């Protein structure tokens, strides 16, 4: 939680100097919302993406964030992130990423990759290069490992889409190598796209 707040603080803090003109007298029209760019270099940066709960309540109400489910954490070696005032969305590229996928607010898998791309508007996290995903096993279960070149975590749909040289290894056997595989975040359901149906 501390890391989440730190991440938000970093974004807002860095962006505030660009929006200092907002303090102008009210006689002049307010500035148009603007996008800001935050670059972290050589530092570890952590933040979380969120999706709406099943009740589809808004992300933020008068009482603050409510009914939110954590979708993923990202830790990266460096990042180039954009923040848009109007939509309150962020997106951008990250290098040397690792983190955790969440399903119903529970950690289900950890991952690492050469680079990543996050887009809060679509709740989509893209991972590229030496992608390595390991499930967080429940009691009496063993972990399952997925490796591939590219991966997309569609947190809204709770689907992991893996591309190019996809291999899934678990105690029950090995799937692949294959060109494209879709799976549940726990990797207990693995299929080619045409046969995949959401659990």
């Amino acid at each position, binding site marked *: 939680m501390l890391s989440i707040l730190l991440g938000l603080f970093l974004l807002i803090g860095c962006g505030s100097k660009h929006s200092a003109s907002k303090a102008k007298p009210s006689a002049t029209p307010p500035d148009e919302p603007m996008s800001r760019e935050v670059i972290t270099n050589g530092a570890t940066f952590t933040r979380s993406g969120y999706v709406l709960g099943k009740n589809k309540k808004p992300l933020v109400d008068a009482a603050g964030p409510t009914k939110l489910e954590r979708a993923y954490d990202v830790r990266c070696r460096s990042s180039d992130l954009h923040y848009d005032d109007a939509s309150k969305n962020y997106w951008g590229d990250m290098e040397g990423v690792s983190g955790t996928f969440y399903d119903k607010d529970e950690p289900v898998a950890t991952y690492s990759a050469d680079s990543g791309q996050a887009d809060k508007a679509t709740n989509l996290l893209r991972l590229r290069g030496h992608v390595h995903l390991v499930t967080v096993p429940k009691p009496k*279960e063993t972990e399952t490992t997925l490796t591939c070149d590219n991966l997309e975590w569609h947190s809204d749909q709770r689907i992991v889409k893996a591309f190019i040289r996809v291999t899934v290894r678990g105690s029950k056997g*090995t799937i692949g190598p*294959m060109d494209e595989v879709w799976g549940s975040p726990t990797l*207990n359901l693995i299929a*080619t796209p*045409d046969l995949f149906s959401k659990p």
Partner: protein
Amino acid sequence: MTKSYRFLPLFAAAMAAAQGGFSYTSSAGDVTLNARSGLVEIPAAGSSVYKFKLRTGVTARSRKDGIVISASEVTGELTSRGKDTVIRHAVATGGVRLVKTANGSTNTITGARADYTDQGSSALVVMSGGVRITSNSSVKRQMWVITGPSGQAVLGPAARKGAGLRTATISGGARVDLTQPRGGNVTATGRQLTLDQAARTVTLSGGVTVKGSGASSFGTLQNAQRAVLRLNEKGEVVASEVSS
């Protein structure tokens, strides 16, 4: 099935692999599943049964059981038997070809649909749609072909011992062609046919006709109520019992 079509499932499986289709290999490598499209559902803790669904150019292979199933679509379940993984149940549709290899003999079942169920000490295959069962034994130099619209077969459990095909029953109009090791053929037809490998008998009932040709010593029998052909270990018809 002509010789050129015999390799069609192998060709389809090779094409599926070349196009980057679905492939699954069990942890011990004793079960492999290949297809253009596929799905595997891994069970939660406490269950050892996992489901699969395969589509287009399907090949499901169980090395322990000596079973290879090729078809357009196969759905089924895998399970653990000790350290081994086996196909517990499979329903194959569309150009089905099931090959059972055991103890030097190969039995091939083809048809439009096959429902395979592992029963521990044996496996049951219920077939329909232009069923054809052939047996080739390199040891006995024996070959026979059974055809009919539908039927069922009981297979032995293991790949290396026992008879691959224990019994086969065809109903709705059956025909058996027995190629004799010393030359000649025996062809028999009837409404129902039962092959029992352990008893070495082929039993036909309902409008039975049996005809020997070539070097076969069997003559011609027409419209019998029931006929039992007794075979020796080489697959030669050595005796027949007829009731009319």
